[in-house]
């Protein structure tokens, strides 16, 4: 028996050692040869490769991870390949939620994609790991060589990936959240559209009492489920003039207290579905699209679906900027999220990578994606009549879109989101507790993240 166990142990040990040996060798090989998949293996240094790619027209393969299939241009780089026959772009879809973990794993193994898409909030943490390439000099060249295409881009395209004085990629798309409401119900009830968050509550109560809402229909829809990041909550905080210090929201402030009170009132006045605390973003959107909610805060990318499933724009629904907090009009600001294309530190062909980014944001390429999905930071596309026809709400919202601020973030952003999620859920389940006391408790947790 003992001999058999010894035998088994030896086999296991050999197996483990073999695996360990394989993994470390593989990593080294990957790091030295696989990245960039350069056909000519004689060049070892990235700089040499770069020189070769630009001078010799050497064949280059770049890997690009998109966070959603919808972001991939319709032609799937066909035109790009025609224009750049020596560069092959291989695409894959790695969900945004998985992007950081998958990228870091591949990066540590020396097998990272050249460009990948992630939430803009992840940039500080990725920067801490020194995993991102600084594209500043490439962009300076771009601006000098092709100012026309460069100047079409809104500042957010670059700001969104900027951290510690370096630009790590390009924000090709930017998604603002707007306030949507059922204008048919508002008209029927004789209500003005709310300009402040107080008006939202008042018109919600008026709608509730008007008899226009049937059983199962509510004045407002929110996302408060645990399986969604509290992005809408944060967006409303920002619209209310919420402040951030080093990317961390300050909840123990006037705006923070007001936001907590707003959510408590929604619950107390039964303006939201009683199960909202378990709702996903899909259920919140579904409530508005399915005519079960009269108001909501919804991202621009969902509007084409609302247009298709609820009604043409203006018939039953209208979009507007988010309301402001009474007395804090000057602190109101439109806000947006972005899912920039960021560049790996390991790239060997910065010029080729720049060409891919230029292609993705080129008017001819990005127009189609912006029309059917997320708005772009290419100002030419966003001000075309064609775009306004495809997305009629944009004509009125073009100006705030241009001024939209990104949701601030920090290296501890994921932990901040956990605290905010708990704060939001606690607020809804404790509608009678003092907002200042709730804010104080959770602010302490946020401060501890340091």
């Amino acid at each position, binding site marked *: 028996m003992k001999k058999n166990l010894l035998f088994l142990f030896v086999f296991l040990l050999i*197996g483990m050692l073999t695996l*360990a040996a394989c993994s470390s060798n593989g990593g080294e090989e990957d790091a030295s040869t696989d990245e960039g998949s350069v056909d000519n293996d004689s060049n070892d240094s990235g700089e040499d490769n770069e020189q070769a790619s630009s001078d010799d027209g050497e064949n280059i393969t770049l890997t690009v991870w998109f966070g959603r299939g919808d972001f991939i241009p319709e032609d799937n780089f066909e035109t790009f390949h025609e224009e750049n026959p020596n560069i092959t772009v291989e695409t894959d879809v790695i969900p945004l939620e998985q992007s950081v973990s998958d990228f870091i794993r591949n990066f540590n193994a020396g097998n990272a994609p050249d460009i990948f898409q992630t939430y803009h909030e992840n940039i500080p943490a990725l920067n*801490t790991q020194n995993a991102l390439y600084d594209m500043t000099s490439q962009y300076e060249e771009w601006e000098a060589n092709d100012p026309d295409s460069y100047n079409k881009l809104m500042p957010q395209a670059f700001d969104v990936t900027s951290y510690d004085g370096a630009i790590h990629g390009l924000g090709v798309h930017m998604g603002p959240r707007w306030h949507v409401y059922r204008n048919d119900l508002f008209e029927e009830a004789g209500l003005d559209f709310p300009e402040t968050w107080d008006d939202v509550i008042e018109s919600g109560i008026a709608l509730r009492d008007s008899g226009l809402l049937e059983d199962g229909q509510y004045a407002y829809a929110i996302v408060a489920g645990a399986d969604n990041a509290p992005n809408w909550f944060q967006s409303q905080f920002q619209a209310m003039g919420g402040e951030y210090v080093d990317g961390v929201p300050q909840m123990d402030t006037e705006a923070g207290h007001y936001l907590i009170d707003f959510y408590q009132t929604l619950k107390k006045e039964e303006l939201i579905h*009683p*199960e909202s*605390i*378990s709702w996903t973003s899909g259920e919140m959107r579904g409530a508005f699209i399915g005519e079960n909610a009269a108001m909501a805060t919804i991202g621009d990318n969902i509007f084409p679906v609302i247009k298709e499933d609820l009604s043409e724009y203006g018939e039953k629904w209208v979009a507007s900027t988010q309301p402001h907090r009474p007395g804090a009009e000057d602190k109101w600001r439109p806000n947006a999220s972005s899912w920039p294309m960021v560049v790996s530190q390991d790239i060997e062909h910065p010029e080729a990578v720049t060409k891919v980014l230029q292609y993705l944001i080129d008017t001819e390429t990005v127009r189609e994606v912006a029309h059917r999905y997320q708005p772009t930071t290419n100002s030419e596309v966003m001000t075309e009549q064609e775009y306004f026809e495809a997305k009629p709400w944009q004509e009125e919202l073009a100006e705030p879109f241009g001024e939209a601020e990104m949701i601030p973030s920090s290296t*501890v952003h994921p932990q901040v989101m956990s605290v905010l999620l*708990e704060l939001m*859920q606690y607020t809804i389940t404790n509608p009678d507790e003092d907002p200042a006391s709730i804010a104080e408790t959770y602010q302490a947790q946020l401060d501890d993240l340091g």
Partner: protein
Amino acid sequence: MSVNQQVTAGPSTKSSTFRKKSVPYLLIFPAVLFVAGVLAYAVISGILLSFFQYDLNTIGRPFVWFQNYIYLFTNSAFLNSLMRSIIFVALSVIIGLILGLAFAISLYRTTKYGDFFKGLSLIPYLVSGVATAVMFRFMFASDVGLINMILDTFGLEQVLFLADPNWALFVTVLANVWGIVPFTVLILLSGIQAIDSELFEAAIVDGASKLNLLFKILLPLISPMMGIALIWLSFASFNMFDVILPLTGGGPLRATEYLAVYMYNVAFTEFQYSLGSTVMVVILFFNVTLSVIYLKIFKSAE
């Protein structure tokens, strides 16, 4: 000639015996390698990682001794998760074992179409966790949920199953039990089928009641299988993840954030990989400890 043969046969017999003994190990080697690669390697790496600080906010991977463990056991979110997990596992194991035993006995007694019903009872086990979660979400929804419709029919008040922390825990236990009981039934059924039926017949002739049959004959004789069933129920419940995440996401208010969900959130939402590994070690510890306890109990009962 024969002497020479005998002389030379010594080492050759030894080597032939060695070869014979080696064959099973050689044959099992690919499987061992596979398990070692997929599981052992990951587990050992995870255990090692729990002694380092590896997260996206830290440069490098400093060795931090037991700091991650100290952090976890002083962290209210983890302690809440641990407590909730213990309740979840205890309820799942108790309900799962009772139901599994009841179904196993029923299937044992089902002579007509027995195979069909055995196959049918396995269906929940074959359904994916996400599909189970979606099904339970619809069943327990407030507006269109089947359960609330039934309550409404009887004039009872609507229950917000998924919005109430305690009800949400109950729903996750039910969804978990629904998925893991079928395999428990298989384990227990195999134990019951191995019992000589003459034992039951003799006991009935001697005037044993049904309860006597259950407690004096059936349960003692299937105790090894009960041990295996308990290990399965505990393992499956402690590791439960794929149903919980789409069903409640760990909420409301972390009420269903069991250890596996907490581990996922810490490691892949907050990018604190070492802390996630530490939670993995805690789960592993509970699984191994429970298995040892079960095996000890049922071995001594045997």
